[in-house]
């Protein structure tokens, strides 16, 4: 059983992470994590105070639990760029402060820092209007340059293929063939997946209502530091981290919005066929499981919303309806922990024994959550 402690502004409750129902937890881990949640309120996605929040919480976990594998994810730079339009010196100073911050943390606590940037962001340049299509266009989800179309007409196809800001139009058959997906229900894949050129987004059902300024750049390469030269591809990172763990404590540090200019170091490939990973569950899972899309549960454009009924299980967040296997935290036999500001992605992608993450929905700050994996719970017994 996976279990969690929810902390909403100081009020706490325990939940069974399968059903979402309230339970009563006792033991070492809840008594360890409850006061950490209580004393570290999450400042919010667009608050730069969320950067030290990650490290401060991680420090408490390291002091008490001493994990060998630690995953820290920092989504704050993404939000500061996406929503607030941070750029120039302000951005550079924030990033160099963040890098100093994590280096200092790893040095004090004896972790080999493996830093991965999810890729540079670029200025928003325009919107592709899909509201005139006769098929059902849906631009919901965290990746704003993707849209799905159901039942497109011939005219829709002509419009999309001729549009100067559309970079790719892929049919269900092409998606299934490219990624060799073995999905039970083929309708989980849209009739068409449409990808906008870097800098462009879509206007359709589900498109983002909040104002935004920058977007993920659909980068061919992303920066990585702290691993040897055998790591060339995003899916090599988890193996590199596991090898590093054989000889030393290792911290995988994921910094969203960090590009190759921000962290001048080695670069690794960030693609699977024609799909460029972008800040999303697919990219997190490629990093932490070493698996490309064909072996992931939710391919780009996955229509998870159709399964969002009463039968859907844990953790009721977007498309996520299961805990993926093969994560570093699941494979590493020793102790593992994660702290992050990308809500549910943090524990889903880390597979760590214990995770503390922010609980944010559409940027409304509901508080924080601690999650114990089955392994974490069995280790305390």
């Amino acid at each position, binding site marked *: 059983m996976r279990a969690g402690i929810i902390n909403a502004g100081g009020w706490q*409750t325990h939940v069974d992470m399968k059903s979402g129902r*309230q339970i009563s937890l006792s033991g070492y881990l809840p008594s360890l994590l409850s006061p950490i949640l209580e004393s570290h309120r999450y400042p919010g996605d667009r608050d730069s105070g969320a950067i030290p929040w990650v490290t401060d919480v991680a420090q408490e976990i390291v002091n008490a639990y001493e994990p060998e594998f630690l995953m820290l994810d920092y989504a704050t730079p993404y939000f500061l760029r996406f929503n607030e339009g941070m750029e120039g010196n302000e951005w550079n100073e924030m990033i160099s402060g963040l890098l100093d911050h994590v280096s200092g943390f790893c040095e004090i606590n004896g972790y080999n820092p493996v830093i991965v940037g999810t890729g540079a962001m670029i200025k928003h340049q325009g919107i592709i209007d899909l509201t005139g299509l006769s098929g059902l266009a849906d631009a919901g989800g965290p990746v704003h340059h993707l849209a799905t179309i159901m039942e497109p007409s011939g005219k829709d196809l002509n419009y999309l293929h001729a549009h100067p800001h559309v970079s790719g139009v892929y049919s269900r058959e092409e998606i299934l063939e490219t990624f060799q997906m073995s999905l039970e229900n083929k309708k989980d894949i849209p009739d068409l997946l449409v990808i906008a050129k870097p800098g462009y987004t879509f206007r359709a059902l589900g498109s983002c*209502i909040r104002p935004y300024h920058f977007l993920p750049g659909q980068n061919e390469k992303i920066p990585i530091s702290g691993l040897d030269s055998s790591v060339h591809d995003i899916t090599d990172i988890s193996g590199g981290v596991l090898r590093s763990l054989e000889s030393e404590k290792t911290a995988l540090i994921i910094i969203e919005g960090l590009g190759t200019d921000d962290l001048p170091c080695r670069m690794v490939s960030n693609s699977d066929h024609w799909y460029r990973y972008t800040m999303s569950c697919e990219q997190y899972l490629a990093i932490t499981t070493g698996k490309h899309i064909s072996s992931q549960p939710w391919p780009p454009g996955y229509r998870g919303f*159709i399964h969002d009924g*009463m039968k859907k299980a844990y953790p009721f967040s977007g498309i996520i309806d299961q805990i993926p296997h093969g994560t570093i935290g699941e494979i590493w036999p020793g102790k593992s922990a994660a702290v992050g500001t990308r809500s549910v992605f943090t524990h889903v992608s880390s597979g760590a024994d214990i995770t503390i993450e922010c609980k944010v929905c559409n940027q409304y700050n509901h508080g924080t959550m601690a999650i114990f994996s089955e392994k974490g719970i069995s280790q305390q017994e």
Partner: protein
Amino acid sequence: MYTVQNGVIIERFPYSWSGLNQSHIEQFPFFHVYPGSRSLMIGTAGCTMDCKYCSNAYIAKCPVEEVPLMNLFPEKVVTIAKKSGCQSIVFAINEPTVSLPSFLELAATAKKEGILVGCLTNGYLTNTSLQKLCEACDFLNISLKALTDQEYADLTGVTSISPICNSITYASSVCHLEITTPVLEPISSEKLGKICRFIAQINPEIPWHVLRLLPEYMLKDAPPPDIQKIEQILHDLRKMLPYTYFGNYVGAQGLSTICPVCGNIVIERINTGTCGGRLIGYNLSNGKCPHCNTKIPITGNYVDWEHLENGS
């Protein structure tokens, strides 16, 4: 938003929507209408109030010219609702009366196509708008933020509460009504008690949603309200208003419908970080408690989400 042209009041941005989103009906929140069903949430931009805590200020309180709007005629919105398997269209992002002609036209088109219509409103309406809104909607959720003129003036900028009370009284007599009360610090048991009594004397079966506000906009640095304190106050008030719900915080325990006669849970909901709730159990049989046969006031039947998928 309106302007006067040749002596006639007209909408400045007709058929211009800020967002279209599929949503669970429980998320708005509507807890006693077609449980489990899928809705198309729509909205425009602007509002008739200026609530200091507004969670949607980026749409409701910024200049409408700055909001990227989608121009879609009512027929197109209804087509999107049908194609995406939505049983209803709910105006919810901002205040519907700022775009009343467009919304009324959309509602009429939706009804012709068998789609239900609902809205969330602050209730600050003229009699004419109120009647038109009630005629257009199958269900309404009116926000009742306080019970005195002074509190309304301090919190929302409008100086009289009487239009809101009038809206609630009228709407309860002509359509399905749920009421939402956002709570901020300092929490007052007296204020919550007064609101509860006001609703109960209109109809004790009205569902009342007490929301723990996550203040934004001018109050973004205000402390989040004390959950335990609110829950203690509501514990007693539920005797007066049995369908009282307490939510808008993750892990909320006060979202399930409890049979007022035997005390069993008849509809189970949790909060996973949205405004309303998420349905996880529906135990009514023919609209009645399966344990003691008490009729629970629900408009419409349970709808299986996955059966709504069109084209699958």
